[in-house]
């Protein structure tokens, strides 16, 4: 891990990881766990600390809810890997959660902005 970034880093909030995974799977198509972790790392530009194991916890949870599906396949370097893909229900859920998230974050943003003014 590149330690020299010097930026403050945040823990991944519970629940948000699910959202990130769903979004990533929607954007990238089927991925395996390692690929997912890399993609999130890349997009977050190393701002988020991710215990990568929790990705699997999240994947299991999402699968149980029926929002993603999984299938064994072969990875780029010809090894057996499990690929995860978002389902129709997952797409709907993603839409819902995205709306929620945007609403809440805008509210929180407003509140925090107001606080900094006073």
């Amino acid at each position, binding site marked *: 891990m590149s330690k020299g970034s010097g930026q403050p880093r945040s823990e991944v909030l519970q629940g948000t990881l699910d959202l990130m995974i769903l979004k990533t799977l929607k954007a990238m198509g089927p991925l395996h766990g*390692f690929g997912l972790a890399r993609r999130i790392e890349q997009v977050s530009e190393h701002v988020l600390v991710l215990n990568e194991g929790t990705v*699997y916890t999240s994947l299991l*949870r999402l699968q149980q809810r029926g929002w993603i599906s999984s299938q064994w396949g072969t990875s780029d370097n010809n090894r057996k890997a499990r690929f995860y893909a978002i389902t129709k229900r997952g797409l709907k859920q993603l839409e819902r959660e995205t709306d929620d998230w945007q609403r809440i974050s805008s509210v929180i943003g407003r509140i925090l902005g107001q606080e900094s003014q006073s």
Partner: protein
Amino acid sequence: MNALRVFIGKIRALRSGGGVPTADDEVQEHIRLLTERYVREGMPADEAAQTARRQFGNMTRLREDWREQRMFPSLESLWRDLRHGARACWKNPGFSTAVVLTLALGIGANTALFSVCNTILLKPLQYQDPDRLVMLWEQIPSVDRMPVAPANFVDWRAQTHAFSGVVAINPFLAFVMNTPDVPARVSAAAVSWDFFSVLQAPLAIGRSFLPDEDRPGSNSVAILSHALWTERFGSRPEVVGSTVTLNDRRFTIVGVLSENFELVNGIVFRGRMQFDIWIPLALTSNPSRGSHPLRVLARLKPGVTLERAQTDASAVASNLARAYPEDDKDRGIAVVPLHDQVTGDVRPALITLSGAVGFVLLIACANVANLMLSRGTARRKEIAVRMAIGASRLRVARQLLMESAVLACIGGALGLLLAFAAVRLAAPYLPSDLARATGFPVDARVLVYTALISLATGALFGLAPLFQARRISASESLQHGTRIAGGSARLRSALVVAQMAVTMILLIGAGLLAKSLWTLLHVPPGFRTDHLVSARLTLPRSRFADTARVSAFHRELIQRLQDSPGIEAAGLAAYLPLSGQDNGWAFFIEGRPPLPVGVYNVAKYRPVSEGYFETIGMPMMAGRAFTAADRADAPRVVVINQSMARTYWGRENPVGQRLRFGAPDWRTIVGVVGDVRHEALDDDAKAEMYVPFAQTPQPETISTVIVRTSIDAAAMTKTLRDAVSAVDNSVPLDLARTMEQIVSLSVSQPRFRTALLVAFSMLALLMASIGVYGTTSYSARQRMREFGVYIAMGATTRDVLRTVLGRATILITIGLAVGVLASLGLTRLLTKFLYGVTPLDSTTFVAAPMFLFVIAMVACYFPARRATRVDPLVALRYE
């Protein structure tokens, strides 16, 4: 929906072998790739591996997380909840005690009553295949189940096809057993030779009777009860083959019954289940068709239904009616399953009581739910905090349920102990004639029942705070001092109303039964019940073979007794009122046109001695009582009672008229005596004819001596015994008791059920009062600040009192109204238990609600009073 999907996912995971190994592979691959990346970036191999693992996170915890997600809540976390629940209960001793005690009382009452029901109604009879056993009764239009004439029994046995065995028992025998010391009375039953084999009751030792022994002349054989064998014969097996002398006649003992053999009540007679000695029935070749002493049992052939048996029996009955119109016209056969016969009498009472006790448990549950609600409200903050730091609702709910379950189990266990104690304590007061009153063991079935109620109750009241927990949102956790939610207050009000209503129903029921019992106990029985002592005499038939000897013995005994100190009057009767013994004869009045064939006038038959009417206090309404002059060789006389005079002579004077029964000679009516309640206090008097012992159609060797005494009744037993042995020391005397005891015994069933219902309703009253008290004081505490403001603004004590009590009054009144309305419908179920009281008795319906209202208001008053003493300053600063 979601929950279901997760559930299915878990099931799938289980089926695919847990999936954990494959996930592990996935993880290993992930870490390998990560390591490779760092190696590519130029890290040394071991540092790369370490970094990769760090980045991946704590593997052990992850695995645990997965397991929990994949599997059902593990036993471990359940155990944790259980421990936490127990700790929570322990930390709140007051609350927990209240809950546990309430439940223990409710469950205890339920279990106790269930033990009784279990023994009487559910436990199969102690015979082989008891379901195939039936009783056969004669049935005439006026009597549903009538004992059987020997000739009819013989014909039934020969002509029916539905039964594999038809046997009879004559339970009205008593012998004097000749022993070296005191003479002993033994009660005996005469039975068909195959009686025990039809019941399939094996003997302990020896053999049953042989067909040849069931004939007059060869029937001097006997089978001993296990009790007699143990008490009198020292359990010696050599007894079989030896002889026993009964009424100066020698019987060869051929067998001993097994210890657990019990002739269930209902087969014979109330209160007569124990027979010491069994002898063959040995009917003559020309048995009587006019007397009806036998009880008949039969076993259905394999495959034969009850309906087919009834059809078969009815066909035989109509044959007999055609063949013997004089005796058997309109006489059917009733086929009654043995189980119905045995439980028939007590079943309705027990079912009613079970309903009552179920109500008590409901009230207990409502109380507990109420307590849990109060506490649930008090714990809102705790629950909200736990949810905020990540506990799932399910987890919190499970935790709450665990707490209830812990309390319910302790309550259940305590209730079971209470039930043991209650059954043991109540056993001596149980009606002695209650079917199978041989003890009420609390057995496995009862345990299961208790466990079920405990768990159901736990789940039931565990749900109450669950509703609250579900409503708590995370945002609420940040707020402070919120007032109780409207929904919870409504639920509590509903609970109060329900408790009041149920208590009202129980109180009205208990009130009706109590009033009925009081009325019953104050029915004039037609005789005096005070200062009377009675005891049973058994004259050996062998030496008292004619009426002259019997009455000579009586006369001498009376003489002796009257000379004894403390005895004011003495007399004898064959059948004492309320003692459960009875007999009747068909009679004919001189000069009246003959009745149609098969129709008879029947009156009760009462052999008595001179001095009997005077002793027991029955008034002569006309004519004279019996005197010493009414000897065996004197003109035949009879005294009838008022009912008989009214029924058969109307306004005519019966004295001087003549009638006959049992024997061809006419008897002159010499007097009319007052009516007595003979069978039961709630049974109207029937036609009775009294005859002197000297003039009975057959010698009456079993009788009851009765004396009126001015001194202690207990001392009288010895006087009686001494007098009897002075006259004839071979005559045993037993069953000494006062008339008051006899009366009391005769109402033991109504008294028992009344006592139980009163006890249950008092329990309900207590718990409902606690419930109302709890609710009122809780809501008063919730509104403390409000009252503080009121008082600060100048409200008087009265105003606050009115505010608190006003709401309670409304709830209580609604509850009472609902209860009274429900009772209007429900008390009809009690009709058959009521005597002299209608199910809608106005006194009860006014007094019981008033009583309950006063008690409930008192319960509310104390918390209300406390609310008036609120210091405004303290109240406002509160929170």
